[in-house]
């Protein structure tokens, strides 16, 4: 089913007339060893319906037990978002029938979230800082995963049947809910992306989530409404569900602003509803109507007792908080002396930690960047994998660098050695020995190659003799070829000059 393309108003035109108001619900899957309320393993990607216990299948007679680590992770997230932590909070049942929810209710926090009243400063690309207020962060359990079979689109409409995998059923989630965000104006899509990126970075930095959006570890529901400039009342909002990449978050917010403007300009009301995001067409389509009167018949979960957080516990967790990512970035950029662009590239490539470790292992910041953003990035791109997935160790970079500075190998050989390291042939030193890649600086071997080159290129020799020393470069090719690239270029130059009786 192709998505219906609504009429749109050009983004800039829309923003001349309307102010966008945003709100986000970001679900973070926690990387605990076991699930929120059962001892089943919390592992992504295993054979369907293997990481299950009677509890996460909702079999008759089972009871939930709260995972203490999940509570700690939720508190850590709350603290990192500058929230207050509830001294006592509980769970409720959200009742609705759906086959991915084995009990036909979701156990979630309702009117007493574990963390509330926080904020997060979001730095946009040009350095402008935008404060987003956090209403709450609460704990809940994930649903199983439905796969709709037989339809053309993979959606439930038109499917012949659906398969359900309960491995994800009961995986701990923290849902982070913002207050309404006003005043972003034209920067709303950019802010949306930056906000989700910041949440992702924080939970990753805290070590509480794998934070892989493509795996659904971080999922964003984006609420958008428009109000006429100068109006004092919010417009009707739509909620675009499960937007699962940073770029998509930006595009979805932009699209909804353009669509809302078109609807409002036509005089029609915005329908309060959920919207589905389509990455292929970069559009949203209507989901189900949603109103505040959705009746989930919440009531306190009678199978659980309240979670009590003592001040000592919270303070102990606070002491475990790592340096906030934004602070850390500022510090590293200054320490390393990178330009804004260089640093942004490093961050975007996800190699900040790798560079930090490489520097700690004994290289300069410049050398570390040269390798990680140069040859290693190139190999990763060729192999179509993430840079870190190549498995290059910081120690390898240090070793390569010291082989170069001690003139055992040159830059070009070093790059080849790296490839062999990635291929699993051993350490750089082992590879250099095993493949006889050490630089040839044996003068007699070099001398023969140089003599042959000079004999073959009398015109070059004449130029050098005539004072054009840079012409020596032309001799380098044949010499390198004769030595299979292993010649020490500096030594070759010295020998040529020596043979021609020129002072270097």
């Amino acid at each position, binding site marked *: 089913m192709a998505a219906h393309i609504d009429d749109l108003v050009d983004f800039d035109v829309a923003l001349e007339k309307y102010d966008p108001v945003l709100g986000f619900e970001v679900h973070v899957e926690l990387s605990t060893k076991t699930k929120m309320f059962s001892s089943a393993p919390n592992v992504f990607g295993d054979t369907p319906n293997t990481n299950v216990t009677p509890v996460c299948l909702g079999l008759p007679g089972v009871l*939930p037990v*709260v995972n203490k680590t999940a509570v700690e992770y939720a508190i850590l997230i709350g603290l990192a978002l500058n929230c207050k932590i509830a001294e006592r909070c509980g769970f409720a049942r959200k*009742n609705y029938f759906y086959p991915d929810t084995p009990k036909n209710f979701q156990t979630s926090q309702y009117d007493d979230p574990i963390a509330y009243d926080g904020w997060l400063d979001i730095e946009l690309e040009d350095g402008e800082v935008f404060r987003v207020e956090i209403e709450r962060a609460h704990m809940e359990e994930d649903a199983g995963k439905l796969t709709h079979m037989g339809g053309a689109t993979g959606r439930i409409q038109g499917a012949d049947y659906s398969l359900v995998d309960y491995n994800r059923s009961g995986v701990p989630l923290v849902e982070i809910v913002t207050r309404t965000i006003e005043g972003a104006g034209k920067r709303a899509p950019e802010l949306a992306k930056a906000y989700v990126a910041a949440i992702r970075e924080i939970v990753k930095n805290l070590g509480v989530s794998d934070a892989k959006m493509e795996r659904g570890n971080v999922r964003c529901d984006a609420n958008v409404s428009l109000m006429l400039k100068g109006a004092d009342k919010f417009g009707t909002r739509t909620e675009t569900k499960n937007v699962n990449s940073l770029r998509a978050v930006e595009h979805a917010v932009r699209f909804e602003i353009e669509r809302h403007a078109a609807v409002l300009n036509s005089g029609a009301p915005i329908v309060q509803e959920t919207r589905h995001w389509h990455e292929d067409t970069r559009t949203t389509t209507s989901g189900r109507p949603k109103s505040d009167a959705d009746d989930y018949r919440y009531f306190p979960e009678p199978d659980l007792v309240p979670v009590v957080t003592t001040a000592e516990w919270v303070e102990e967790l606070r002491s475990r908080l790592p340096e906030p990512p934004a602070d850390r970035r500022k510090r590293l950029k200054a320490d390393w002396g990178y330009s804004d662009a260089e640093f942004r590239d490093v961050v975007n490539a996800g190699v900040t930690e790798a560079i930090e470790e490489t520097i700690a292992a004994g290289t300069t910041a410049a050398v570390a960047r040269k390798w990680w953003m140069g040859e290693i990035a190139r190999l990763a791109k060729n192999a179509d994998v993430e840079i870190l997935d190549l498995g290059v160790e910081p120690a390898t970079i240090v070793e390569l660098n010291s082989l170069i500075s001690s003139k055992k190998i040159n830059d070009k050989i070093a790059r080849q050695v790296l490839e062999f390291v990635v291929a699993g042939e051993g350490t750089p030193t082992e590879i250099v020995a095993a493949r006889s890649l050490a630089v040839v600086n044996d003068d007699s071997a070099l001398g023969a190659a140089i003599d042959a080159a000079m004999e073959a290129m009398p015109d070059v020799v004449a130029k050098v003799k005539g004072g054009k020393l840079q012409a020596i470069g032309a001799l380098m090719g044949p010499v390198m070829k004769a030595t299979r690239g292993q010649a020490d270029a500096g030594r070759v130059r010295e020998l040529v000059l020596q043979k021609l009786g020129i002072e270097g």
Partner: protein
Amino acid sequence: MTDIIHLSATELAAKLRAGELTSVAAVQAHLDRIAAVDGGERGVHAFLHVNTEEALAVAAEVDAIRAAGGEAAEALHPFAGVPIAIKDLIVTKGQPTTAASKMLEGWMSPYDATVITKIRAAKLPMLGKTNLDEFAMGSSTEHSAYGPTRNPWDLDRIPGGSGGGSAAAVAAFEAPLALGTDTGGSIRQPGAVTGTVGVKPTYGGVSRYGAIAMASSLDQIGPVTRTVLDSAYLHELIGGHDPADSTSLNEPVPALVAAAEQGASGDMTGVRVGVIKELQGEGYEAGVQARFDESLEALRAAGAEIVEVSCPNFKYALGAYYLIMPSEVSSNLAKFDGVRFGTRVLPTEGPLTIERVMGSTRAAGFGDEVKRRIILGTYALSAGYYDAYYGSAQKVRTLIQRDFDAAFELADVLISPTSPTVAFELGSKTDDPLAMYLNDVATIPANMAGIPGITVPGGLSEGLPVGIQFLAPVREDARLYRAGAALEKLLEDTWGGRLIDQAPELSAATTEEVR
């Protein structure tokens, strides 16, 4: 060996330990009794499943350990080898668990309830699964999808409910021990009308893990036996903290057997017994009231100080119970949808959407009483009604707790008739749900407050048993056993033996009339 089945569990256990009897013989005697009286058109029908093979195998294992002697024999639980029946609301590996519902027909649990794990560890042979009102919803066992259980005292009468199967099995000497569950009286009211002993422990005293939930904040598993001492042993065996049940108390089981043994002297000197003003008089049958008054006299004569206490908010208890319980039912029973386990019924016409499959499964799988409560609870939790119904009911719950707190300032234990009437005739109240609900008026307050309660036989009214209920503060289950054992001893002295031995002889299941 017809005597075997008439032994109390404690007596039977002593004979097993002394080597006077084998567990295989004990189990076989009960299996023979079940075969004789449980089946057929006018059988007791206490059992939904008889677990012959496994029960005999466990018995043989116990006999072998005892025969071999040594440390393994020494380490056996005192009740090892004593057979037990299990209410079919409690999940068991290797035996079907139906909750007496079509919804779970043929379902085999892949896991054991915590109490079953304990029973297996103690090596009590499980005789089988007993009948109940569907999903424990009822007071007569007539709401079982597999047919009613009959009261061994009069086969035309109900055995109480929801745990009528467990009570009738014990009363009919088909089992010396049984497990029940009590949400609003489902252990105590059947105990009362069958002349047996039943205990609802303090909420959290026994793990609920593996008891199919009816109303989570009210449910509790407890013992069903013929003597108070037997209940004490069984309660100690199944009680204690369970990490799989967040609501289970994290403390050791109280010394219940010692309390029952203390009570068996019949001495009640210094014990303050509070008579709950609101749980007698109007609505209580004259015969029930007479036996209750005699019990009070017996206790007074044994040294108890009888005081009157008032619990003015009890008049709201039944109404509040019928909001909280169905609310939790509506959510707890949502999982029965035909998707993952149990019965699945496809719609006979129209498209096969998931909503329609769930709908037709629930329409066909649940009985009327279950549907009634699901609908009531769904309504009570709905937006706009929640505060008026569920919210108000929770406030009543607090008021009832305060009533009990005040009453326990004046008394060590409270006393009332367990049920306002003796067993009524089968079919007489099935069309009148409100009349049925009134059976639990005296038992419900304990569930609402989480406190423990016991019923002990209090004599007969027109040939049918009357139950006397004691209640104690939270965690003070031992007081129930002290008072219960004392009353048991005092009354048996007047009867010249156990009340249950006055029950009419049941003949073979083929017999048309009870002689």
